[in-house]
């Protein structure tokens, strides 16, 4: 019987010729990653278990990004624990503030992970890296501690879902709208415990960053992973990372067999998809932008691990160029990583954002989890390019978040209400 991409990668890492959905296997882990919040708990657990020897520090990645640059004394305390742990164990992939960014943007662009590899991360959006044709999945701190100590984790082999996107994209429709469209169809539980495979000719026309956006939000449908096939675009990104240029590591991409079995299959005609938003309080509460233009807004967040890629910043900047943010609105732009910030500088993007009246921030998860850099007050309404709009997610329990693509977010910031660039 044929195997899906996820089944092939899991089988290789379990040392078996094939695996079946539902089977519980032990897999070797190529990278076990954590941010300061999940790492602090993993480090505490290792201490309680009396384990001071790590299986392989070359396979560990630590990226303080949630409450950094340290937002308060609590953040300072846990990032210090993580930094000292990284130094003591000689962790290969420790990324310090100023040389890092948001974990899910740092990992693929610095070459921490390669196609065909298996990564576990102490953050649910670890699935972002699946865009590079690797099996990357979010787990809790105990699992991460286990991977650090043993080099392995237990895994229940997921069923696979196959989502195919075909046709010609309408203006201002990007990867974000495609995944929101799928979420509206599948719901937040529609792909629970499935590995999602994204296919279709539409991805030949979109940059790789849109794949990251869609893999990032696989978890919003309950997915265990979100994978793309390997192609020329993947190769270009993978082989341009600093790590690849230096080490020239070998890697093996995987394609699904033609007779692979999928528990769920959908084909979406993208020519019918308009720019979308997800309304409060769920990523599957999807509506067309044109139906929400009466919603006045207080804040706009552009960036994060979902839409903080260079192409996203370019799309937003094109809308802001020569325009001003609405007087009632404040905008925070958050590029995914230091590398992306540097590239944005080369393109002159910060000047455009600043001239329009935006905050141009360093990389941090801050506002997306109601941490810092733009926490919402009572009753405030935000358009955000991030991935979750649960009640209270970005601040006060009564605040509301609409999820959208960067061009829609920028247009809304200028209009003062939800709208698309065509409304300007």
């Amino acid at each position: 019987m044929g195997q899906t991409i996820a089944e092939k990668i899991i089988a290789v890492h379990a040392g078996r010729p094939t695996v079946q959905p539902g089977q519980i296997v032990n897999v070797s882990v190529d990278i076990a990653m954590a941010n300061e919040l999940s790492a602090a708990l993993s480090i505490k657990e290792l201490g309680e278990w009396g384990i001071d020897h790590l299986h392989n520090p070359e396979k560990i990645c630590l990226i303080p990004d949630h409450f950094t640059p340290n937002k308060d004394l609590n953040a300072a305390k846990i990032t210090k624990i993580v930094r000292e742990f990284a130094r003591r164990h000689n962790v290969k992939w420790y990324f310090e503030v100023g040389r890092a960014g948001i974990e899910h943007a740092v990992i693929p662009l610095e070459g921490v992970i390669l196609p065909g590899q298996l990564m576990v991360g102490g953050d649910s959006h670890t699935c972002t890296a699946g865009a590079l044709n690797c099996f990357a999945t979010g787990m809790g701190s105990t699992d991460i501690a286990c991977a650090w100590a043993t080099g392995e984790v237990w895994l229940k082999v997921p069923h696979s879902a196959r989502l195919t996107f075909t046709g010609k994209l309408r203006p201002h429709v990007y990867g974000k709208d495609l995944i929101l469209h799928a979420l509206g169809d599948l719901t937040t539980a529609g792909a629970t415990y499935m590995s999602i495979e994204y296919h279709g000719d539409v991805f030949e026309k979109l940059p790789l960053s849109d794949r990251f956006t869609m893999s990032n939000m696989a978890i919003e449908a309950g997915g265990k992973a979100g994978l793309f096939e390997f192609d020329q675009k993947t190769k270009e990104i993978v082989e341009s990372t600093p790590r690849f240029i230096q080490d020239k590591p070998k890697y093996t991409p995987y394609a699904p067999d033609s007779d692979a079995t999928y528990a769920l299959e959908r084909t979406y005609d993208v020519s019918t998809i308009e720019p979308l938003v997800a309304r409060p309080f769920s990523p599957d509460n999807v509506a067309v932008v044109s139906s929400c233009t009466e919603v006045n807004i207080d804040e706009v967040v552009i960036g994060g691990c979902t839409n903080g890629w260079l192409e996203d910043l370019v799309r937003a900047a094109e809308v802001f160029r020569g325009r001003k943010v609405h007087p009632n609105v404040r905008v925070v732009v958050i590029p995914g990583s230091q590398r992306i910030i540097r590239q944005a500088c080369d393109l002159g993007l910060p000047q455009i954002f600043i001239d329009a009246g935006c905050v141009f921030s360093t990389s941090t998860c801050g506002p997306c989890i109601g941490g810092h850099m733009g926490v919402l007050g009572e009753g405030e309404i935000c358009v955000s390019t991030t991935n979750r709009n649960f009640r209270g997610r970005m601040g006060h329990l009564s605040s509301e978040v609409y999820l959208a693509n960067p061009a829609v977010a920028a247009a809304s910031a200028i209009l003062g209400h939800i709208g698309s660039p065509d409304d300007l």
Partner: protein
Amino acid sequence: MILKGKVYRAGDNINTDVIMPGRWCHLTDNDELAKHCMEDHDRDFLKKIKPGDIIVADDNFGCGSSREVAPLSIKAVGIAGIVARSFARIFYRNCINIGLPIFESPECAEVTEAGDELEIDVFGGRIVNATRGKEMTFAPYPDFMQTILRDGGLRAWVLDKVNKK
């Protein structure tokens, strides 16, 4: 292992952000976590429950983030177990790994109301709702997960692997 307790009833899509809001995710101490459990779902949660109680919920309990502080806080307040129509997968896995019993039973979610008395035979695959006079079954855990739960979490499995190496 038999769990016996009163039911705290919750609905669909109880996400980890409302179980343990982002503002408390820097905490690692169980007593501290316990103070904020379910804070953004129900401000009176801690007043309504007592150690040994059981949460019964509908679909997709624990969806969202991988933050282990969410199930840790539920364990820390003394909740004995969680029954739901369905669970999000990272949350489910985290519960097994920290030794918090967790059961998928659409049937139990269907008949159970707040305050009901439940009795759960963890490894026998049986739930009795004494208040409603209903006896239900659930699919037993795979052997591997049973072992982890009997050990009270993943610790023993990790130590065994480390010692063999």
